[in-house]
């Protein structure tokens, strides 16, 4: 997915060049929201079209929940060590 990275890097570069042009920058945020709405609408359609995905939505949901619990517990444990090693000394 190299295209993804290239397209975004071009955007970052352009954004940095035009960072003082407030009028243009202000228009980016709503456009960004509209493109997210459009894409999730399209993803919804592509999932809705595949009946086998709809019927296995409970399995997918359970897998998603387990992965999320793993992600949250993992990141919380890591943040605990980060707190002990780097943050606690500042509180004393």
């Amino acid at each position: 997915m190299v295209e993804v990275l290239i397209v975004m890097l071009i955007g970052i570069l352009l954004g940095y060049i035009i960072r003082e042009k407030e009028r243009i920058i202000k228009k980016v945020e709503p456009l960004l929201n509209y493109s997210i709405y459009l894409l999730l609408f399209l993803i919804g359609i592509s999932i809705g079209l595949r009946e086998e995905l709809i019927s296995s939505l409970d399995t997918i949901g359970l897998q998603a929940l387990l992965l999320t619990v793993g992600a949250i517990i993992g990141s919380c444990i890591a943040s605990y060590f980060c707190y002990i090693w780097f943050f606690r000394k500042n509180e004393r």
Partner: protein
Amino acid sequence: MKGSLIIVGFFVAGLLLGYSGATPAFLENKDLSTYALYILLFLVGISVGADKSALNVIRNVKLELLVLPFFILIGTYVGVSIVSLFLSDISIGESLAVGSGMGYYSVSSIIINEVKGERLGALALLSNIMREIITLLFSPLLVILFGKLAPLASGGATSMDSTLSMTKQCSGKEYVVVAIFSGTVLTILVPFLVGFILEIF
């Protein structure tokens, strides 16, 4: 939270339209979503590049602030990898791609949907929405179990906006800046991480 509801609304509307069988043919065209994805990433790039506060944060950064997002990232990766060992039809690479979303469900699920298909895309969308919801519901518990950085670690990329209030309530005002920094760094990293993980696995 209102923004999230609108996004979920569009997703559900699409789901119902697709399932109803009344979808106009031009909306089924795969190229449409590919071009829309490029436009989205281009716009994300512009907003990141033009964001002056992001530049300021980077200038004033201290070591402990800088290491935190990487701890959160590594913790997430270890967590999802362990879970994937118990899920027969999800590979470690797929679980890492889903975990790379860090709660930034719109962008991460769109990229994964494009590269890996609808099944993993739907999984990524659900998982990353759940990360936001669980953070909103369970931060008071997480802070007791895992300490003051837990709410913003759990929130991942969302700790700078939609779950920021949980950090403020559960960890204290002094952690708001930490949450904004960590959330901003992770938000910027998400598209790169997802793309990178999909590329190497």
